[in-house]
């Protein structure tokens, strides 16, 4: 049987996940990236991203995965995904220049009958001009919404809830290979105009942000009035208008980069088109305030009480099951407490490109606790649940345990002699 080659151009987290999932569905995949070194690493099955289940899935489908920096081979591919993750700056503004450069680099090598799908996180209004400009030489250009989540990206890539596809002409249907590819994932496909699809991705993220912000606002009130958000959230999940999978766990604001980017994009669009978007600023403010929950608590119960402070620091990644530290509340807190000695441990983050003052990294979670005044659990890694809390307490000088996400068993912490603090109660 003829098994055509499907190309993924740009092999950051997004491209690599979709390339691997595509291979797992039985397609032959060619991954392209400007970096020869990266392609060589991937050819040797050394993955630059950490994602649960990815190494195994990659290994199982390795025979259908090939990687190259030679863009001339793109002409062999009739379906080409551009999937470079769009970076953001410190203000969460998208930097589209690497993606545009990649499109320009790839465009000259595309077959005239190629179908191009842009998977990257582009703002509304990006794809149509590109289809008439850089990509004017190809037959059809689509924009497909990606909704991967760091830490569960393999599951979401393999079993998507739906595919949202922006089309130049939504009534025209899909080219055969792209249609076959969409069908392989067995989920509903929603074709719509390009601009709708581009905004649909942002719409999804803004609804998530609204849940997160509402949860955090109410969780703080719980802390003040003696209510427990943990008792309230199950009631909300049973409400069909809110839903079983709603984001109802209190957290330290919005992190990771993607949600922040979409907030920034909507602010820019609103300013450009003169629409009201005050709620976006409110969400951003709420996020920044909530991010500092542990800072305020640490100041109140630790820093203002003792001059000799040493903090044990579990978790550096912005969330569990990822190595990403983008907008990580843990690092924001560590930077705010630059004057204090912190000994950190994270299962995935073993070094930091940009150092944090007075932050040392320990080899194990227990090593980080030696002689500590307080322990803060800033990333809810599941493996922290298995650590012997009595041993932790014995190693520490103080008895403060701050566990915002409630990853540890509260009763066990109290039984081990800790003063225990978590969000929402």
């Amino acid at each position, binding site marked *: 049987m003829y098994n055509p080659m499907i190309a993924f151009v740009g092999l950051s987290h997004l491209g690599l996940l979709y390339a691997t999932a595509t291979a797992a569905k039985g397609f032959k995949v060619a991954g392209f990236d400007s970096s020869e070194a990266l392609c060589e690493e991937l050819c040797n099955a050394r993955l630059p991203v950490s994602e649960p289940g990815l190494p195994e899935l990659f290994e199982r489908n390795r025979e259908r995965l090939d990687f190259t920096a030679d863009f001339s081979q793109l002409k062999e591919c009739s379906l080409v995904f551009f999937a470079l993750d769009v970076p953001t700056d410190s203000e969460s503004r998208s930097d589209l220049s690497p993606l545009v450069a990649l499109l320009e680099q790839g465009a000259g090598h595309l077959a005239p009958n190629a179908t191009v799908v842009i998977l990257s996180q582009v703002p509304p209004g990006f794809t149509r001009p590109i289809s008439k400009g850089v990509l004017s030489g190809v037959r059809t250009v689509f924009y497909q919404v990606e909704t991967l989540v760091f830490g569960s990206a393999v599951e979401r890539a393999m079993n998507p809830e739906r595919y949202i596809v922006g089309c130049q002409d939504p009534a025209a249907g899909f080219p055969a290979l792209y249609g076959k590819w969409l069908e392989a994932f067995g989920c509903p496909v929603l074709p719509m105009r390009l601009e709708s699809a581009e905004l649909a991705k942002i719409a999804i993220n803004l609804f998530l942000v609204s849940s997160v912000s509402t949860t955090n606002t109410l969780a703080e009130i719980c802390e003040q009035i003696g209510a427990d958000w943990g008792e309230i959230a199950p009631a909300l999940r049973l409400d069909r208008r809110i839903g079983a999978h709603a984001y109802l766990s209190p957290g330290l604001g919005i992190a990771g980069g993607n949600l922040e980017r979409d907030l920034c994009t909507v602010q820019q669009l609103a300013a450009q088109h003169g629409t009201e978007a005050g709620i976006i600023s409110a969400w951003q403010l709420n996020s920044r*305030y909530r991010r*500092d929950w542990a*800072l*305020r608590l640490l*100041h109140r119960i630790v820093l203002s009480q003792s*001059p000799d402070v040493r903090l044990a620091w579990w978790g550096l990644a912005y969330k569990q099951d990822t190595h990403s530290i983008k907008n990580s509340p843990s690092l924001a807190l560590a930077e705010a407490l630059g*004057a204090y000695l912190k000994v950190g441990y994270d299962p995935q983050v073993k070094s930091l490109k940009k150092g944090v003052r007075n932050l040392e990294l320990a080899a194990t979670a227990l090593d980080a606790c030696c002689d500590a005044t307080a322990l803060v659990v800033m990333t809810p890694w599941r493996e922290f649940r298995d650590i012997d809390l009595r041993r932790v307490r014995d190693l520490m000088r103080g008895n403060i345990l701050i566990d915002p996400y409630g990853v540890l068993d509260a009763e066990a912490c109290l039984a081990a002699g800790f003063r225990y603090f978590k969000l929402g109660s």
Partner: protein
Amino acid sequence: MLYHHHTKPISPKRVVILGASGFVSTALGRHLKAAGMEYRSVASSEVDLTQPESVAQLGAIFCEGDAIVMTSGLTPDKGRDVGTLMKNLSMAQHVGAALEQSLCSHLVYISSDAVYDGRESLIRENSIRQPSDLYSLMHIAREQILSFTSAKAKTPLCIFCPCAIYGAGDTHNSYGPNRFFRMASKDSKITLFGEGRETRDHVYIEDVARLLVQCLMYRSAGTINAASGEAVTFHDVATRIAGLIGPSIAVEFLPPGGAVTHRQFDVTERVRAFPDFNPTSLDEGLLETLTKVRNP
């Protein structure tokens, strides 16, 4: 955001306090003296900042490397009219002009929490500035004038916004702890509007002075609110004061003066800027105040 020009505390060559007899200026002078820091107070009797000649007079006082703290101002009890506003603006104009002609290292402007729109549940440094009267307009305008001139003079500016200050030596009689102490000692009762349910943050004068010293030592630039982070109702304050003075003090109520409003502060910025700064608890501050009032 507050930005420190020094990563470690360093005393400025000299601190010049504009205003010599006010609540904040005297407390600051006391703390600077205790810290062994050189300072000089400039009283209105020496330099009348409302007058144009004050520019030259300040120019003669300011030395290279001086840190200037501007506490001077005509407070609402001296007048709430347009004339008072214009005099206050003239003061800022003249200080700014003197600053432009000197090589001062730092300017700290004592503003007020009156600059903030009080409708937010938590006031923070980037809260909306919204004048509600000529006094708050004065502070907002002076912040702008001094921001402009300090930028021109390339002198770091710290805008310091205290909430309601209490403590011994207060020269004003605004509604709150100090007036409650006076009521209690004079009339053996504290009278509250409504049931005193409004929540406010009261910052102790010694904390204000300590925080100012920190800003001077770190040569901090930006805006910082001086608040305790512990807001309580007026009724709570009155009850605590009555409890300190003795059982003979009654707390009584007058008809409500209007809608119940609350004013609380998010102190995260202060915690981030000065993590080892620990504000005095209200109980401690009230007790110290009473002790100092009784034994001046």
